[in-house]
């Protein structure tokens, strides 16, 4: 059965999310990991979408080229755990497929 109220609410939600997501992409939020492309000692260079930043690696155990790093105020504060990221994504996809 067609329910105009529900359809309208869904549309509002969609528009809200779409705006939010677009705005989110434009901004380079500090929550977005950057990839380590070069380092010497504790000084490294990390990159995202062509933007490069100097990054201090003092707080990272065994950094490696290609690591995705969470960066705050010029310091890497953690490596992204890819196994956990994949597990998150698996759960999201599972949710997707649920009826």
């Amino acid at each position, binding site marked *: 059965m067609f329910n105009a109220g529900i359809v309208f609410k869904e549309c509002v939600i969609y528009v809200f999310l779409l705006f939010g997501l677009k*705005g989110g992409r434009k901004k380079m939020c500090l929550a977005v990991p950057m990839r380590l492309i070069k380092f010497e000692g504790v000084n490294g260079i990390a990159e995202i979408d062509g933007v490069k930043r100097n990054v201090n690696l003092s707080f990272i155990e065994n950094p490696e080229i290609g690591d995705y790093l969470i960066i705050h105020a010029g310091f890497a504060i953690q490596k992204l755990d890819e196994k956990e990221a994949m597990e998150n994504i698996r759960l*999201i996809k599972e949710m997707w497929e649920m009826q």
Partner: protein
Amino acid sequence: MKYLSEFRDIKAIQKYIERIKIILNGQKISLMEVCGTHTMAISRYGIRSIVPENLRLISGPGCPVCVTPNYYIDRAVALAKEEDIIVATFGDMLRVPGSLSSLELVKIKGGDVRIVYSTMDALKIAENNPSKNVVFLGIGFETTAPTIAASIKEAKNKNIKNYFVLCAHKVMPPAMKALVANEKIGIDGFICPGHVSTIIGSNPYKFIPESYNKACVIAGFEPVDIVISIEMLIKQVIKGKPEVEIQYKRVVKPDGNTFALKTMYEVFEPCDSEWRGIGVIEGSGLKIKKDYSDFDAEENFEVEVETVRENKECICGLVLQGLKYPYECKLFRKLCTPENPVGACMVSSEGTCAAYFKYSDM
């Protein structure tokens, strides 16, 4: 970008919201976030408007600039007026109004105020300007404090004698304790801060479920992270089994970042600290240890600071505790805007008033 699209998947968000509605089943629950990046993300993605009405999402004191009291800003302003001092700061401090002035106004009048991206940049300014004293404004929570500690250690190692920190760092768990104990706010659970927890881990929050019977989930910053965390929290509340869970496992580990913690506590020690609008919270601040007092601006500079004044109309203090919404402030959108901020909560990009101004039509 790595994995980003999955964590912004609209269909997944809608599904989680549907599930949240079913689990809530009409029950009233209030959750508070205490991280400025969460405040911004919740507003930006319109999450408050898509969750059921009986789920209240409150913003807490997660914006470091906002919780910094006026007397600190006044002190920074007084230092910036001194001829031989360069004040170095992260950008969001520049426009915060103090009692009578701001760093931006001092800069316009010729004060040497420089914006840096990292403390190491401030240290370089000190090295390049040996005839001046460089004072870095050390504000921020556990995410930022280790980076400032690292710069102080580096200054000591390199024997840089003209680098100082005006320290007003804060730690989050004691503030959460004060908030959870305040029944007027009525918090059922915390969306725990993702980056603070990257440093401190999940253990420091354990007292919240254990002593206060309230839920805790450490959340990531993408919209899917946030709705998953909300679902985890309301499940804990409804089952009556509060605990500390980590949703942001791809970054946060139970023990946090031990290297950063070690650096932080080598240079700083806990102290009581004043939060704007909330007052002094026991053990909620960090001060520079005696061994590093040569780098403590508080110890090394005497400046005359104007009498502290607060704008009586600004209800920032109540907003920071989740007791009022920004639109309940008389000045919101009228006299107080991001271009002309009256209070700190409108200045910082992470402030609750700024978030409501930008993303809410209320």
